[in-house]
């Protein structure tokens, strides 16, 4: 699961990365397009303006030239008229020509006004105003000439002559203006061209700058992005590594905790069993001495009764048959009673001896012993012991003894005792089940398995499993089976010390593990784990605890 999540996250990142990388050129292209568009629009505007200015100025100069032309024509016409007049060619046309001339002058004045308003600069406007004034004077003169023409042509011609000067001045002004208008138009055109050039230069500079900025930005973005991606990858890897480490550590911790719990459990049980064992041994010590007296004195009393019988024999001869029989009866009964006292005393002594085994501590010397051989020996002993008690007993014995089990440093007698105990218990459970139910298919079986293992502390160890398909252990009894004196057997058949002593041997003496699994009515399996190497303890704790109890 985490792998797929990781992958999808990675692919999401590379998608983001691609978008980032593509974004820079796209932005650059868009920006360039915008600049080009703006530049193009600006250029179009500038060109339009230049064209307008040029057109305007050209229009102006054309107008001026035209007006100048017409003034020249007017002057020429006037000259021709005056010349004709002087030649004495009196013609109605002259008057009409003069009237036309006057109208023409008016039109020129009007057009000059239009030109002034539309095209002229200040200086030109002033010149035009002067020219217009002079033309108005000229018009007055022309009007006057046409009026005078009726009366006195000669004086009118004489009068008209100075107007030629005026006219020349106007012509001069107009020629100047034409020149000026052309120069002005050229200047403006140059100006406009310069402006356009500058605009284009600026546009180019800005565009180059923009391109530099955009590509620089894109480059920086790319570099930064790459760095970011690299760092992100690095970071992701580190996080993943850390996560793995943490997961591992958590796992380890959980395992340690589990082991700690187990150890704690085992320690609690071990401590409980140890104190129970010591208590048992302590009680045994206290009982042993008085019990010895009971046994000794009962035994002695039997002997003494024997002697008494011998001693009173001569005296008994003197008695009658009844009296003798009475005495013999009483002595017989006393002897019987004493024997019973002694028998039960012996039984109690057996129990006490078992109890005392708890206090022996690790007395058995640990020697390297072949575990499988110990198992075989104990199994045979237990089987024959069982057969001796119950001749009809039969069981299928399975030996799964791994040769790799090999040797372990144990106290062989003690371990044999534990195994004997387990086998005897197994046989008993099988026997009980056979007796309890009439299940025809029930096949009594006891299996013993040995192998090489590591115990829960990681030590090299051997494991022995003894499994029977007997009655099983009820849940209620499972916690008590290692307690001293706990037995399910009828009184007199079991002391309830077997498993508690076995526990002592395995857990206290050999620092091993002793566990049981069972299902009532189906099976029981005991597992004994013994470390291969003996750990040398300075002193068994039982002595100190006995003192503590006392």
């Amino acid at each position: 699961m985490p792998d797929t999540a990781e992958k999808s996250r990675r692919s999401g990142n590379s998608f983001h990365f691609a978008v980032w990388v593509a974004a820079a050129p796209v932005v650059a292209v868009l920006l360039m397009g915008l600049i080009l568009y703006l530049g193009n629009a600006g250029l179009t505007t500038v060109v339009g303006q230049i064209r307008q200015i040029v057109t305007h100025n050209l229009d102006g100069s054309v107008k001026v030239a035209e007006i100048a032309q017409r003034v020249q024509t007017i002057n020429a016409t006037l000259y021709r008229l005056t010349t004709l007049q002087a030649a004495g060619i009196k013609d109605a046309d002259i008057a009409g020509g003069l009237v036309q001339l006057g109208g023409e002058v008016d039109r020129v004045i009007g057009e000059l006004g239009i030109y002034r308003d539309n095209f002229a600069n200040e200086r030109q406007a002033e010149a035009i105003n002067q020219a217009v004034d002079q033309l108005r004077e000229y018009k007055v003169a022309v009007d006057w000439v046409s009026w005078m023409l009726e009366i006195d042509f000669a004086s009118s011609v004489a009068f008209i002559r100075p107007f030629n000067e005026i006219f020349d001045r106007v012509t001069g002004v107009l020629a100047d203006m034409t020149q000026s208008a052309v120069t002005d138009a050229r200047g403006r055109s140059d100006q406009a061209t310069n402006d356009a050039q500058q605009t284009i230069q600026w546009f180019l500079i800005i565009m180059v700058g923009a391109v530099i900025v955009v590509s620089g930005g894109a480059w920086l973005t790319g570099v930064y992005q790459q760095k970011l991606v690299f760092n992100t990858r690095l970071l992701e890897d580190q996080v993943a590594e850390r996560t793995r480490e943490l997961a591992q550590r958590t796992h380890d911790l959980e395992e340690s905790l589990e082991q700690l719990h187990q150890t704690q459990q085992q320690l609690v049980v071990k401590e409980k069993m140890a104190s129970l064992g010591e208590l048992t041994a302590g009680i045994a010590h206290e009982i042993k001495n008085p019990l010895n007296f009971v046994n000794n004195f009962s035994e002695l009393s039997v002997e003494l009764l024997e002697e008494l019988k011998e001693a009173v024999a001569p005296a008994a001869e003197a008695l009658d048959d009844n009296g003798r029989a009475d005495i013999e009866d009483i002595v017989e009964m006393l002897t019987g009673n004493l024997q019973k006292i002694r028998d039960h005393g012996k039984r109690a002594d057996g129990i006490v001896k078992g109890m005392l085994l708890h206090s022996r501590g690790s007395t058995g010397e640990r020697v390297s012993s072949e575990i499988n051989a110990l198992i075989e020996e104990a199994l045979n002993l237990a089987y024959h012991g069982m057969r001796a008690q119950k001749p009809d007993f039969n069981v299928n014995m399975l030996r799964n003894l791994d040769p790799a089990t090999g040797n372990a440093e144990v106290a062989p007698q003690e371990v044999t005792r534990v195994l004997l105990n387990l086998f005897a218990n197994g046989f008993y459970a099988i026997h009980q089940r056979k007796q309890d139910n009439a299940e025809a298919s029930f096949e009594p079986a006891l299996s013993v398995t040995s192998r090489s293992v590591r115990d829960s502390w990681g030590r090299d160890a051997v494991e022995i499993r003894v499994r029977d398909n007997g009655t099983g252990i009820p849940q209620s009894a499972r916690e008590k089976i290692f307690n001293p004196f706990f037995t399910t057997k009828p009184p007199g058949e079991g002391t309830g010390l077997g498993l508690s002593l076995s526990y002592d041997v395995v857990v206290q003496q050999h620092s091993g593990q002793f566990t049981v699994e069972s299902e009532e009515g189906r099976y029981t399996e005991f597992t004994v784990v013994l470390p291969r190497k003996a750990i040398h303890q300075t002193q068994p704790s039982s002595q100190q605890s006995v003192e503590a109890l006392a």
Partner: protein
Amino acid sequence: MNTPTKILVVDDEQDVVDLFRQRFRRELRNGSVCLEFAHCAEDALVRVGEIERPRVMLILSDINMPGMSGLELLKSVKERWANLPVVMVTAYGDEENRRRATELGAEDLIAKPIDFDALKARLAALAEA
């Protein structure tokens, strides 16, 4: 058997006196064994010095006693009378006591309950030696 074998029994249990007297009643009657009793180790040490010591004498001492222990008694006795045989009796019969008793020079260590037949055989062997 002209000189009886003397046994000094050291035990804090009072009934030991009756037990030994009854067990050895025949030997006491025929004078082959003579019994002395002490109920603590300190008393025993005094008694060993006081009583007449025949050729064959044996101390039979319990180990667990209030006050001076049987092993301490054994040590003191062996310091002063190295040749006096001492047999230790213990209810425990454990290795540690056996080792220490042997180290301190005890002739033997026997477990309770005392096997009187074996003890008698041992005394006979001692007397003949």
